[in-house]
C-alpha cells in the first residue's frame, strides 16, 4: 500500500489557448490530478507541472513547441489564476488545490 504522502494529488484545471490546445488533444480545458510532490518530496510547482504535462497529457510528438531547454518555450505566457506567473514567482510557484493554470501562445498575426 502506498504511503499517503506519495499518492496525494492536487486537483487543478489546466487551460491551453492561442493554438497550444492543438498539442493537447485539441481540448482547451483539462481537469487533472497533479501529484502533490515531486520524486524528491518537494511540493509540486509550475516547473514540475510543465514536466508532468509533457509526460502525461501531451498528445503531439512536437514537444519543442511547448518546452525548450527544459523550460517553457519563449513566446508562451503562463497565467496562474489569470495573473501573469511573474506576479506569482514563475516556475517556483507552488500549486494550490483548484488553481487554474493557463498556457497561452503569444500571437503576432494581424
Amino acid at each position, binding site marked *: 500500500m502506498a504511503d499517503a504522502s506519495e499518492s496525494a494529488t492536487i486537483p487543478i484545471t489546466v487551460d491551453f489557448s*492561442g*493554438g497550444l490546445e492543438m498539442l493537447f488533444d485539441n481540448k482547451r480545458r483539462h481537469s487533472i490530478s497533479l501529484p502533490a510532490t515531486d520524486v524528491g518530496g518537494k511540493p509540486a510547482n509550475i516547473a514540475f507541472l510543465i514536466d508532468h504535462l509533457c509526460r502525461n497529457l501531451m498528445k503531439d510528438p512536437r514537444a519543442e513547441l511547448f518546452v525548450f531547454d527544459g523550460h517553457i*518555450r519563449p513566446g508562451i505566457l503562463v497565467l496562474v489564476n*489569470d495573473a501573469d506567473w*511573474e506576479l506569482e514567482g514563475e516556475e517556483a510557484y507552488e500549486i494550490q488545490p483548484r488553481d487554474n493554470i493557463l498556457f*497561452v501562445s*503569444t500571437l503576432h*498575426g*494581424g
Partner: protein
Amino acid sequence: QNGCSRQLTDDEVDRYSRQMIVPGMGKEGQLRLINSRVLIIGAGGLGCPAAQYIAGAGIGTVGIVDGDVVETSNLHRQVGHATSRIGMKKVESLITHLRGLNPLPSYIPYPTHLTPQNAAEIISQYDLIMDCTDNPATRYLISDMCVLLGKPLVSAASIQKSGQLIVLNCPPTPQGLVDGNYAPCYRCCFRKPPPPSSMVSCGEAGIMGPVVGMMGVAQAGEAIKILASALHIPPRPLADDDATPERNLRQPTLLIYTYDLESAVGPYSFRALRMGGRRRNCFACGEGSTLTLEGVQAGSPNYEQFCSMPTSRASL
C-alpha cells in the same frame, strides 16, 4: 495638447453628436479627439476596422503605415479595401474608404514598411500608436520606439481563431525609471519572441474575419478612450502616482479572445489576464537600459535576428 478653447463647427456637432452626448465624453472629449494624432501601423485585418472607427470618431490626424498592396485574399477580412482597388497600395486604398466615411480628418499615408531607419521620424509625430502589424520583429521595433519617444501603444494580434489586445506604456514614463508603479512596454510582457519554427503568418495559418475584426474594433475603442479622457497624460509628470483610474493601465489587462467554430460564445470566449507593471530588468524600459534612438537607427538591436533564431517550420 488640449486645445479646448476652440469651438466645434456645426458640421462637427452634426457628425459627432451621438458620441458627444455619451456620459463622460462631451464637448471636451470630442475636442481632445479632434486635436489628437493617431498612427495606425498596418492596414490589414486589424488596421481596417480600427481605422474605420478612429476616422469615424473624428481623430484629427490619422497616419497609416503599410508597404503592401491589396490582394484578393485580403478582402474577406480587410473591410476597408475593395475589389476595384486590388493592386493599389493598402494605405491609399484604406484612406480612400476613410475619406468617404469622414472627410474632416487629415489622413497621412506612409506607403512603406516601418523600419529601424524610418520609425523615429514617423512615430515622433503622433500622440498614440496602434500596432496592427503581423510580425514580431516590427512589434518589438514599435514598442522600443514608443518607449524612447514616450508614446502610448495599443497593441493587438490575431490568427486563426484567437485574438489578443493590450494597452502598453500608458501613461508613458521615461526610460530607466523603475522605482514606482509604471506601465510596462511590450518587452516587459513578452520578453522573448517565439522561435520562428513555432510561428506562421495569417497567410499560412489562416484567419477568421470576425476574429481579427473584433480585435481591430477593440483597439479603436481603447485608443479613443485614452485620447478622449487623456489617460496618456500623467497627472503629475514623473511622480509615483497611484491614482485609481490609472491602476489598470499601469498593471494592464491582456484580453484574449477565443473563437470556436463548434459552439456559441461562452464563458471562456473572453479572458482578462492581469499582467505586471514595468520590469526592472527590461531591455528597453528598465534600469540602465542602453537602448537609444541612434542605436536603433544604426542597427542595434538587430530585430530580424532577435526574431529568427533557429530553423523555420510552420506549425502553431
